[in-house]
């Protein structure tokens, strides 16, 4: 029997970090992630982990310290949110470019302004082009499970890239839920011993990280980085399956809910998927053929899987919890719509913005989105590509 505990998302990730027992954690507190690193700091002070915990003066320094420690040859973790992630921005690109397998939990929170501490996805979506793998979590259980899997994915010798594990700020990070935890030994065996590639502390084999790289080689290095992240999908799938064998909870790149025979689908990230399940069950009771596509892996974007899942449906409502100002739709909409351009059959797709700055989304909002999608499909054309859920006019 698996051990069941009451954890909020932050506690679940802190506990996973304790079981992972990384060599170095460098972090700076920021709401709603603070609770996670505070708990980890307690594990350090109680001597329950061997980790070197580096308290830094900013997130830019946190990520810089993580990069140094990872290049030195350590297994490294951190956590942040919103403006903290934004302050790391420059260093995020450097961590990915140097192929350092750092794992970071991000408690998704609105990026200013005005200042807001609640959930939306504008923080990690802003970092979507930095070269990190992005795994979204639906609840505290998934935040725990994704954190453990992220170590194995990041450190795979065919990957060697940093991973962001996200959880919706407050909605997941601060809500206590039932979480099944693994034994310490199970986690230890699952992730295995860390094997550093080109560690700076190997004094017999000196290497240089981050040299100047101009027009003669920079482009080739970026091309090899493109190849590296594109090649991650099979590894993420394999690790998800192995984790399923260990825990009974199987993970894929994306997850369909009542999607097999669906005519209309909603696509979402994070905790909203739980709300969407309610909406779908309720519409199914009314005889509507509707389903959910939950995107667990957003980077690399699993194009083929999205085509396979959505090509058969007639209409798709893509829910975006962040804005790409001036762009044609939100980040998720843009990706999904672009992927479906080459699909054998293309559903009509509309974009709904919702939940900015932590505005709650209700099952009725998602029902409304699916009903609107059905209306559009029946009318045969889209008058308005972009719409809003839960917004006052």
């Amino acid at each position, binding site marked *: 029997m698996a051990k069941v505990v009451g954890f909020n998302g932050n506690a679940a990730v802190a506990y996973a970090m304790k079981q992972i027992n990384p060599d170095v954690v460098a972090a700076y507190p920021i709401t709603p992630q603070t609770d996670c690193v505070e708990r980890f700091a307690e594990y350090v002070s109680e001597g329950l982990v061997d980790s070197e915990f580096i308290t830094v003066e900013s997130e830019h320094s946190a990520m810089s310290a993580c990069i140094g420690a990872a290049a030195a040859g350590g297994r490294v973790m951190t956590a942040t949110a919103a403006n903290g992630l934004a302050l790391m921005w420059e260093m995020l690109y450097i961590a990915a470019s140097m192929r350092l397998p750092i794992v970071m939990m991000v408690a998704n929170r609105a990026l200013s302004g005005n200042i807001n501490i609640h959930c939306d996805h504008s923080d990690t979506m802003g970092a979507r082009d930095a070269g990190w793998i992005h795994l979204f979590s639906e609840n505290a259980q998934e935040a725990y499970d994704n954190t453990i899997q992220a170590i194995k994915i990041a450190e795979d010798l065919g990957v060697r890239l940093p991973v962001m594990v996200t959880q919706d700020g407050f909605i997941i990070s601060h809500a206590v839920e039932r979480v099944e935890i693994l034994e310490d030994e199970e986690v230890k065996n699952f992730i295995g011993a860390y094997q550093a590639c080109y560690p700076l502390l190997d004094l017999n*084999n000196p290497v240089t990280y981050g040299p100047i*790289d101009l027009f003669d080689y920079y*482009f080739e290095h970026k091309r090899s980085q493109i190849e590296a992240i594109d090649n991650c999908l099979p590894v993420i799938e394999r690790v998800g399956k192995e984790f399923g064998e260990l825990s009974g909870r199987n993970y894929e790149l994306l997850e369909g809910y009542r999607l097999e025979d669906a005519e209309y689908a909603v696509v979402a990230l994070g905790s909203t998927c739980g709300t969407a399940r309610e909406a779908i069950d309720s519409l199914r009771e009314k005889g509507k053929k509707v389903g959910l596509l939950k995107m667990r892996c957003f980077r690399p974007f699993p194009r083929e899987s999205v085509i396979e899942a959505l090509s058969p449906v007639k209409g798709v409502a893509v829910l975006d919890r962040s804005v790409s100002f001036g762009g044609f739709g939100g980040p998720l909409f843009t990706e999904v719509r672009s992927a479906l351009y080459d699909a054998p059959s293309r559903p009509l797709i509309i974009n709904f913005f919702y939940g900015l700055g932590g505005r709650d989304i209700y099952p009725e909002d998602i029902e409304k989105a699916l009903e609107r999608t059905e209306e559009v499909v029946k009318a045969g054309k889209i008058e308005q590509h972009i719409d809003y859920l839960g917004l006052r006019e």
Partner: protein
Amino acid sequence: MDKLKGWKELVPGGLIVEAGNAKEYKTGDWRTEKPELNLEKCIHCFFCWAYCPDGAVIVDAETGKMLAFNYDYCKGCGICASICPAKGAITMVAE
């Protein structure tokens, strides 16, 4: 430098995994002007050798004679010509 490598041949992360390889980077092609040596006027004071930021002045330590410039690494900064006390021994000329 050898033929430039394609992206599939590179070390992941853009790392340099051999030590002491700065000499493989011939910085001489940055030059727009080069120093020319007139040995008849040179007084072999070694000022240019001491001041050169790139170690691009070739001298014979045994005989104490200035020999030549190493154009593989000389960036043409002109410090040698400006500190040279023997007028006309070092002249900067366009490449």
